[in-house]
């Protein structure tokens, strides 16, 4: 998030796009409701009429995968009507003229045809967002999990810069992170193309700094993403895999392909707290601990570094995950990796990562510190891009609407959207071992529009088979107008009827995120 969670309630307009906020981030949704009570206008753009959409001042029911067209359409109207922020565009950005020309062809009529949103609603949304004193964008995986995920994010950046709604209190672009420490994992470069703190593998000074600190020569060639590693396994590129606290046998697209790949590894090391579907395929399993049995930090969605504190001793012979990695390193004969506690690891991070340089366990204390925090005296950065963007001027990058990778056809006539249920978390390995949560729901379902259910003679509660080009699952039908006719929705938490048996491993070409939000399926009543 460029802003902080608490700022949301001061926004005058909040555009929620591709976020089922009350289900996936309920506490953030309460801030949005508070903003609405204080008079904020809420706009929701989503192919499903989610719970929060029913509280919106304006709900735009887009066709799946047409976000770029929607945003370009809003920009077209905003620029034509002169509602853009001329001063911000002039002082803080570059490339506006190119955007202006590019956006010409996204007329309300054409955008309405692509997206299914009436022209009048596009005009209302454009005016609401552009003219409000402080507007914020809130988005989630409904924006990113597409073959055009990067294009979607770029178009949101264009919208926020053109309207000057960034770099101010309660005004910015705010992705909501789905997992407790996605932000921290990414900050620490558990990604293949940068070093910790987003420092470049191509920068000689950066490489020299890390080589001196770690006493090694570092590889300069960027590595592979998860999806690329999966493909490289089958072809003999990757032969040994170390999986820590991940369950690709439920979380990754096209699970049958994942299973074949993992089974062909020469060495699969899995470190986890439960015997997951991925553990079942391992050659060696290392028992880690839960958040309650160790010290450390999580970085939340608004860049807030917070402390987790050990409350109980590790269960059985399980060891804290930080200690296990050091144990493996020592077994490999690595000379470094001697840490008495996670706070020593954190101090090493602070010494190498400028964004974290001013943070320590002492400073985090009760309320956390938000990065960037470059010196011991620097305060938390509550919102980013105040006077300048990290690269100086913000560059408009016009993007064209592109269709999703796999659209419905005669054989597979429905769009499948996957996502979360309110009571479970990711692959369910933790929440499905919680009585309170399984008491709410413990099996998978498919949401079907009443008109489609009627046509296919599927009744509520009936077992329904969903089939895609990659596999099939049988789940219970829920008849609901939340989904559009022609679309169905399945949550992905349930390993025994995993939605990811169906999903398409087509990737965004830049960041290699799979298109979980759209693939083609057919529905059959199970006799």
């Amino acid at each position, binding site marked *: 998030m460029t802003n902080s969670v608490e700022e949301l309630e001061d926004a005058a307009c909040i555009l929620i796009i591709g976020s089922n906020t009350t289900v996936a981030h309920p506490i953030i949704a309460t801030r949005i409701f508070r903003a609405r009570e204080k008079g904020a206008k809420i706009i929701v753009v989503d192919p499903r009429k989610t719970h929060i959409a029913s509280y919106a001042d304006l709900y735009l029911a887009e066709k799946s995968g047409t976000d770029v067209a929607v945003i370009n359409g809003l920009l077209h109207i905003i620029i034509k009507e002169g509602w853009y922020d001329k001063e911000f565009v002039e002082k803080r950005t570059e490339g506006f003229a190119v955007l202006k020309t590019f956006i010409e062809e996204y007329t309300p009529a054409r955008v309405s045809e692509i997206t299914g949103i009436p022209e009048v609603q596009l005009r209302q949304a454009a005016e609401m967002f552009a003219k409000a004193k402080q507007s914020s964008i809130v988005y989630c995986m409904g924006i*990113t999990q597409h073959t055009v995920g990067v294009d979607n994010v770029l178009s949101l950046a264009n919208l926020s810069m053109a309207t000057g709604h960034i770099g101010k209190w309660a005004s910015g672009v705010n992705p909501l992170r*789905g997992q407790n420490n996605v932000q921290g994992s990414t900050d620490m470069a558990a990604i293949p193309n940068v070093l910790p703190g987003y420092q470049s593998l191509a920068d000689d000074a950066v490489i020299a700094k890390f080589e001196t600190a770690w006493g090694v020569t570092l590889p300069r060639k960027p590595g592979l993403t998860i999806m690329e590693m999966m493909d490289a396994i089958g072809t003999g590129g990757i*032969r040994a895999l170390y999986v820590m606290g991940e369950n690709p046998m439920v979380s990754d697209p096209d699970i049958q392909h994942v299973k074949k790949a993992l089974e062909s590894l020469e060495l699969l090391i899995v470190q986890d707290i439960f015997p997951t579907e991925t553990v079942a395929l391992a050659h060696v399993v290392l028992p880690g601990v839960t958040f309650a049995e160790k010290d450390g930090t999580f970085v939340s969605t608004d860049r807030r570094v917070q402390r987790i504190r050990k409350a109980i001793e590790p269960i059985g012979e399980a060891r804290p995950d930080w200690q296990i990695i050091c144990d493996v390193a020592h077994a490999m004969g690595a000379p470094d990796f001697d840490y008495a506690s996670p706070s020593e690891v954190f101090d090493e991070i602070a010494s190498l990562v400028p964004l974290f340089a001013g943070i320590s366990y002492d400073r985090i204390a009760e309320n*956390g510190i938000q990065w960037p925090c470059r010196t011991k005296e620097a305060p938390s950065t509550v919102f980013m891009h105040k006077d300048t963007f990290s690269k100086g001027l913000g560059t408009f990058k016009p993007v064209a609407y592109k269709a999703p990778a796999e659209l419905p056809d005669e054989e597979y006539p429905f769009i499948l959207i996957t996502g979360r249920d309110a009571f479970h978390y990711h692959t369910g390995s933790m929440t499905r071992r919680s*009585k309170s949560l399984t008491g709410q729901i413990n099996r998978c379902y498919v949401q079907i529009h009443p008109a489609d259910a009627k046509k296919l003679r599927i009744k509520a509660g009936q077992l329904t088979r969903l089939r895609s080009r990659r596999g099939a699952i049988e789940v219970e039908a829920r008849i609901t107008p939340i989904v559009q006719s022609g679309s169905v929705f399945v949550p992905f938490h349930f390993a025994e009827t995993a939605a990811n048996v169906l999903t398409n491993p087509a990737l965004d070409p830049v960041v290699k995120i799979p298109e979980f939000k759209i693939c083609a399926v057919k529905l059959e009543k199970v006799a």
Partner: protein
Amino acid sequence: MIDYRTVYTICPFCGTGCGILLEVMNGRLEGVLPCKTNPVNQGKLCIKGWSAHEFVHSPDRLKKPLVRKDGRLEEVEWDEALSFIASRLKAITQAYGPDSFGAFSSAKCTTEENYLLQKFTRAVIGTNNIDHCARL
């Protein structure tokens, strides 16, 4: 003697970062209380947060290292598991180079643990093949 304590920590589920107080009774987690002074959640929790202690003491927890022997995963001591890993990893990376190794790190683990696993991957093995499920 009854040992009852509350420990201030952060919810392990979504990325919001709500502050919670774990209720600990004689070394076992008994409950969760929302933290009112945490600036993010200000005393509120969702149902997942209220239940965050429940999975920790599940009887399914992995309690010992396992190594596959004759097709079955069998319990072993830590030393055996670690030396098994070291010898296999060395053999594979020596024969096929560092890029034959890959690591999936975890968005559920701590910042420090993610730092250490990428350091292991880059500094000990010598490859940039590391990623986590941010995209999934």
